[in-house]
């Protein structure tokens, strides 16, 4: 750590989960053959005209809502002019003067303290084509050209790399849960830039800032900010200064490096996009979109804890969207949620990870799951027996009872039957009975082991222990 106070702002680009592109009806897809998802609009052919995708507007409204932004009711698009091969129109259509969302916030939790990260604005824009540099040539793939983006810009209100990471995790979680984006940083559907400057005291004016572009993971955002603070501190400590600059995080060096950017590059001459008239956002549209927002992560965590699930498990459930949705479908049921969460996060999650499946890929319907939870809860099914039948539970449509019968793991719940087994064990082990009566605790454990062995784990352990104790006394 250095003796400086850091000021950090973060800009995030997020690709929206639409079927088609923002201004054309070609497919919005990833990982397909280069230049196979384009039409004349994406390629910037002369004479073509953009038309705004309604779903883009809806998803942007949704994003503005979950980020607690105010929503602009009347807006337009602007042209950002620059020459670069990633954009053959020589301008990018974006929102400069009238961003759809503004004055929002996201609440994060740092060391148990809540902090609001303020959002300056969020706007809609088109993605550029993807360029890959190979030695002396650059290869262009226009599949990404025209993919809808929202850019979310925070105020410079963060002061540690940890806060920036927490903010990004929270942002990602909110956008994922509201189905706005798949937020895969490794595929570029979520990309982060960080602005960093440092100063000695709060009362000092802001110093020169450096922008770190296109950081590929949330942990690297933290690391690159940390490294950048150290770099700037060294410069100031040596009595030197530096020019505003654009840097990038180098994975191999694990440090930020200066990027080659033309100094005249930042003169974009924005002006209103004349090909797209005003966009009016009606209250009806906002209300309709708001209704589509599912229960968000913070509310889910609270709800789960209210139902008796431990905080650590509530957090784990929210990390897995499909498990969380599955559980949400059960919220009105009268079941033991502690047992339900243990099941979901334990044996079921292990099965899903091993088989690379989502819970929705299994045959575990709501009704069968409730049955399973109840059977576990009243000890009709033991954890040991569950392991033996789990594959069948998740892969066949048969009832839990049927599967238990088939696999011969039916618990003996009949008092009389258990008593018979126990009497037999007592008769066969007179030495252990004598030990027990002489006060050796281990003897009863041995006898219980024999009962379990005899029944192949098929008795309710608590019930068996009660009866055994009763019989011994």
């Amino acid at each position, binding site marked *: 750590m250095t003796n400086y106070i850091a000021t950090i702002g973060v800009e995030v680009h997020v690709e929206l989960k639409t079927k088609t592109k923002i201004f054309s009806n*070609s497919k919005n897809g990833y990982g397909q053959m280069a230049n196979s998802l384009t039409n004349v609009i994406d390629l910037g052919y002369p004479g073509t005209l953009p038309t*705004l995708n309604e779903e883009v507007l809806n998803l942007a409204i949704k994003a503005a809502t979950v980020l607690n932004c105010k929503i602009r009711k009347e807006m337009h698009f602007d042209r950002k002019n620059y020459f670069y091969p990633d954009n053959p129109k020589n301008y990018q259509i974006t929102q400069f003067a009238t961003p759809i969302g503004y004055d929002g916030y996201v609440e994060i939790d740092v060391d148990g303290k809540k902090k609001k990260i303020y959002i300056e604005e969020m706007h809609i824009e088109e993605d550029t084509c993807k360029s890959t540099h190979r030695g002396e040539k650059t290869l262009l793939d226009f599949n990404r050209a025209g993919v809808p983006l929202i850019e979310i810009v925070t105020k410079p209100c963060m002061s540690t790399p940890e806060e920036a990471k927490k903010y990004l995790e929270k942002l990602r979680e909110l956008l994922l849960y509201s189905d706005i984006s798949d937020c895969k940083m490794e595929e570029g559907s979520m990309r982060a830039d960080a602005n960093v400057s440092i100063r000695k005291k709060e009362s000092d004016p802001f110093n020169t800032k450096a922008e770190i572009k296109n950081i590929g993971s949330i942990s690297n955002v933290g690391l690159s900010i940390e490294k950048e603070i150290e770099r700037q501190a060294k410069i100031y400590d040596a009595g030197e200064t530096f020019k505003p600059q654009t840097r990038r995080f180098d994975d191999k060096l694990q440090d930020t490096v200066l990027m080659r950017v033309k100094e005249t590059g930042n003169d974009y001459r924005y002006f209103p996009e004349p090909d797209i008239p005003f966009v009016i956002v009606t209250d009806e549209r906002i209300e309709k979109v708001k209704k589509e927002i599912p229960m968000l992560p913070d509310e889910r965590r609270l709800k789960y804890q209210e139902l008796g699930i431990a905080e650590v498990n509530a957090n784990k459930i929210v990390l897995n969207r499909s498990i969380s949705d599955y559980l949400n479908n059960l919220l009105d049921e009268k079941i033991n949620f502690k047992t339900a969460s243990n099941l979901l996060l334990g044996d079921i999650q292990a099965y899903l990870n091993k088989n690379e499946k989502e819970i929705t890929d299994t045959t575990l319907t709501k009704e069968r799951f409730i049955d399973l939870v109840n059977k576990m809860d009243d000890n009709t099914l033991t954890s040991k027996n569950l392991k033996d039948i789990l594959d069948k539970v998740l892969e066949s449509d048969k009832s839990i009872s049927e599967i238990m019968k088939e696999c011969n793991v039916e618990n003996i719940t009949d008092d009389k039957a258990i008593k018979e087994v126990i009497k037999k064990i007592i008769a066969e082990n007179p030495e252990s009975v004598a030990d027990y009566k002489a006060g050796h605790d281990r003897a009863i454990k041995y006898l219980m082991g024999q009962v379990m062995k005899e029944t192949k784990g098929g008795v309710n352990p608590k019930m068996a222990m009660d009866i055994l104790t009763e019989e011994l006394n």
Partner: protein
Amino acid sequence: MKEKLSREEVLHVAELARIAVTEEEIEKYQVELKKLLNDVEKINEVKGYDDEILIAPWSHNTDLREDKEGEMLDPKKVIENAPRHSGNYIQVPVVIGESEGA
């Protein structure tokens, strides 16, 4: 009102437009571009212009497009239209400035 743009202003505009200009042209554009700017300035004199930003000559809401896939171009045709290509990629020379735009 000055009669012409400065030399630096002309060079800046040329740089943004990625065009090379000769000494002769610089002098010519110093005068010509200033004339154009003066003409555009006249629009500011129109009364009420500042009240609202004029984007389109009509004020109704834009027509939105349904999020439904349409026909796309054959990738072969896309590539044929570029001067150079490498596999299915369009190929261009490396340009300084690793990430412009978005």
